């Protein structure tokens, strides 16, 4: 097992990569893989293997893996299924640390394919070579500038690593993250899992210092017992967020007790995740938000949450969701009521959610955030109301009065002022969060969409932070942080 771990490490931080089946045809995957290795600025050696070509994309080709002069750490195999046998044997002679078998058409097709991929897996395992696939889209490690994958995405180095049975799911998360400016560490698209089992991949990511959060998408688990043991260990080191696809039917299995009839495979899987300390989510949205939240926010010390809101309804919805999820909303202490009352209008809520009722002027949001975040009563903050500038722009540009040519100065003053507030507010969130060790979750409809004009997003993304599009999103994100913190506290106590 530890041999597999060192193999995986070498595969993620290689000095030389070969593309077995590199192609000059832009329609072929053998082109895409090579293209992305180059595009991603892989600093080591790249060896395209192609019998007919001298060079592809300006890189010298080799007619076989054996003719490559130095050692190779990773071989990406992207040949038609009928040529896979040769590729496997050549690899075994060359002894790379790892292989990524992109080639599809095996276990996912029929029993014969399943037999073939098992045989291939055994050959690699016996040779001490780790690997992903077959039937996968590749792998990447942003920290080593290794983009040995078909997808045209090159995220900046970050803390999140993705372990996905489906290339499609992993790619969609990577794309969404890239759009939000979120960094990633690794992406293993492991496909049919014929070479190295998911438990070993998970164990490696658990040990990997560059991975701070692990995001998992699985459909079937081949060895549930081992997966459960590894997961239980990894969850003590870093958060693991899991989305399970393929809720299988319990079917016509023979059970002779009531307990047996109650236990579907999904129920047991859910319970095992809960027991191991993983965060199980039910859709792609939550997989993304939960993982990015862990990457960008500190864990709260308790489930005592303060909600700050510029207006009423969003605060109420946040409070409802918090209550549903078992978070606590402590009362605002007397001294804080007093200090907030000094600059907020008479109509403010005096309660948690702390509803400013659009009072206190533009700088009120900043002052309130500072006072509430510093109060020892709250260990986490859900903040609603950033993104004034986008709102200001909408208002003034659509107005028959402010939109007039002779109002251009006033218009710009409005937008500029709001933009400044957004910027300071976002910076304040980062500063306070870091200083106090409390999660501060920014929530806004207008500011949740990345754009060049969106200053709040630009400030927050630098620290891997998102702006949550609805109060339900931020309340759920907070509950994941709380659940993980409570899990760790239980484990440390017990």
């Amino acid at each position, binding site marked *: 097992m530890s041999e597999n771990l060192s193999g995986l490490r070498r595969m993620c931080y290689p000095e030389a990569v070969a593309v077995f089946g590199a192609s000059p045809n832009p329609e072929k995957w053998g082109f895409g893989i090579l293209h992305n290795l180059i595009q991603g600025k892989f600093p080591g050696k790249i060896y395209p293997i192609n019998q007919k070509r001298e060079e592809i994309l300006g890189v010298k080709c080799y007619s076989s893996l054996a003719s490559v002069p130095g050692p190779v750490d990773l071989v990406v195999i992207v040949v038609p299924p009928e040529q896979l046998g040769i590729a496997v044997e050549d690899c075994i002679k060359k002894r790379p640390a790892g292989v990524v078998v992109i080639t599809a058409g095996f276990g996912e097709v029929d029993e014969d394919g399943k037999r073939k991929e098992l045989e291939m897996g055994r050959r690699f395992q016996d040779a001490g070579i780790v690997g992903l696939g077959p039937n996968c889209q590749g792998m990447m490690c942003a920290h080593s500038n290794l983009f040995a994958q078909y997808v045209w995405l090159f995220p900046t180095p970050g803390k999140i690593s993705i372990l996905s049975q489906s290339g499609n799911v992993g790619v969609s998360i990577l794309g969404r993250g890239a759009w939000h400016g979120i960094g990633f560490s690794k992406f293993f698209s492991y496909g049919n899992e014929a070479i190295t089992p998911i438990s070993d991949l998970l164990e490696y990511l658990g040990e990997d210092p560059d991975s701070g959060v692990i995001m998992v998408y699985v459909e079937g688990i081949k060895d549930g017992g081992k997966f459960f043991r590894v997961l239980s260990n990894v969850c003590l080191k870093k958060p693991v967020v899991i989305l399970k696809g393929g809720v299988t039917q319990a079917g016509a299995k023979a059970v002779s*007790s009531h307990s047996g009839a109650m236990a579907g495979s999904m129920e047991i899987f859910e319970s095992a995740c809960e027991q191991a300390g993983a965060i199980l989510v039910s859709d792609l949205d939550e997989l993304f938000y939960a993982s990015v939240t862990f990457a960008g926010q500190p864990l709260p010390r308790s489930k005592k949450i303060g909600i700050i809101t510029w207006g009423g309804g969003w605060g109420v919805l946040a409070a409802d969701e918090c209550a549903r999820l078992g978070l606590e909303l402590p009362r605002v202490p007397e001294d804080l009521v007093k200090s907030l009352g000094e600059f907020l209008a008479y109509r403010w809520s005096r309660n948690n959610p702390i509803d400013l009722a659009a009072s206190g002027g533009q700088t009120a949001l900043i002052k309130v955030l500072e006072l509430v975040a510093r109060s020892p009563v709250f260990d986490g903050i859900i903040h609603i109301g950033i993104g004034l500038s986008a709102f200001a722009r909408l208002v003034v540009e659509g107005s028959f009065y402010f939109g007039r040519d002779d109002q251009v100065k006033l218009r710009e003053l409005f937008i500029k002022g709001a933009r400044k507030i957004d910027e300071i507010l976002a910076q304040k969130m980062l500063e306070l969060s870091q200083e106090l060790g409390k999660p501060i979750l920014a929530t806004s409809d207008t500011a949740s969409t990345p754009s060049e004009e969106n200053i709040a997003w630009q400030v927050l993304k630098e620290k891997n932070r998102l702006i949550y599009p609805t109060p339900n999103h931020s309340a759920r994100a907070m509950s994941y942080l709380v659940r993980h913190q409570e899990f760790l506290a239980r484990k440390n106590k017990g």
Partner: protein
Amino acid sequence: MEVIEKALKEKRKNLTEYESKLALKEYGVPVTKEFLVRNAKEAVAKAEEIGYPVALKGSGPELLHKTELDIIRLNLKTPKELRNAFREIKANAGKKLKGALVQEMVKGQRELVIGLIRDPQFGPCVMFGLGGIYTEILRDVCFRVAPITEQDAYQMFEEIKGKKILDSFRGMAPADKKTLAQALVGLAKLGVENPSVKEVDVNPLILTKEGRPVAVDALVVLNEEAKK
């Protein structure tokens, strides 16, 4: 375990209620006070020891579905009622009757279920949830992979939707969670240590007014393949 070995030797697919409870008791699951008797005279003698009212259930390895066979009589208050009950059960069960179980009558309105299953992926798993007829109607149950800690058991108490059933409620005391947790830990241990046990049902596990959990009925299903 002796009762399990014996049943396997006899090529039986399950333990009787009496045997099931012997096994469960050894692993820390609180069970009803009960005695296996051969005739009405013995039944009356044991009922005196337990104290009235008592329950009487027909017993035998082939008598699995006791309700359907109409061989359960509850809340028997006098020796006369007990003797009559014995006669009726004997008539309904016929030759399959190997004895009868005289049992303390446990009163309580809160019915829970605990159980054990063997998952093809994760191995033995314990179950906890709402019992009685609600087990199948509401499916309000949760699972843990065995072995488990007491802490895991406390987590299970929090996980079911009907978790308030464990709190004090309408004059009933809160559940003795410690004992309940130990029962789940024990049941998980039973699953780990006995590969020949395929499934276990403890349903209902009644919470008395004082909050004491007691296994009122139990079934241990055996896995014949495991012994090979």
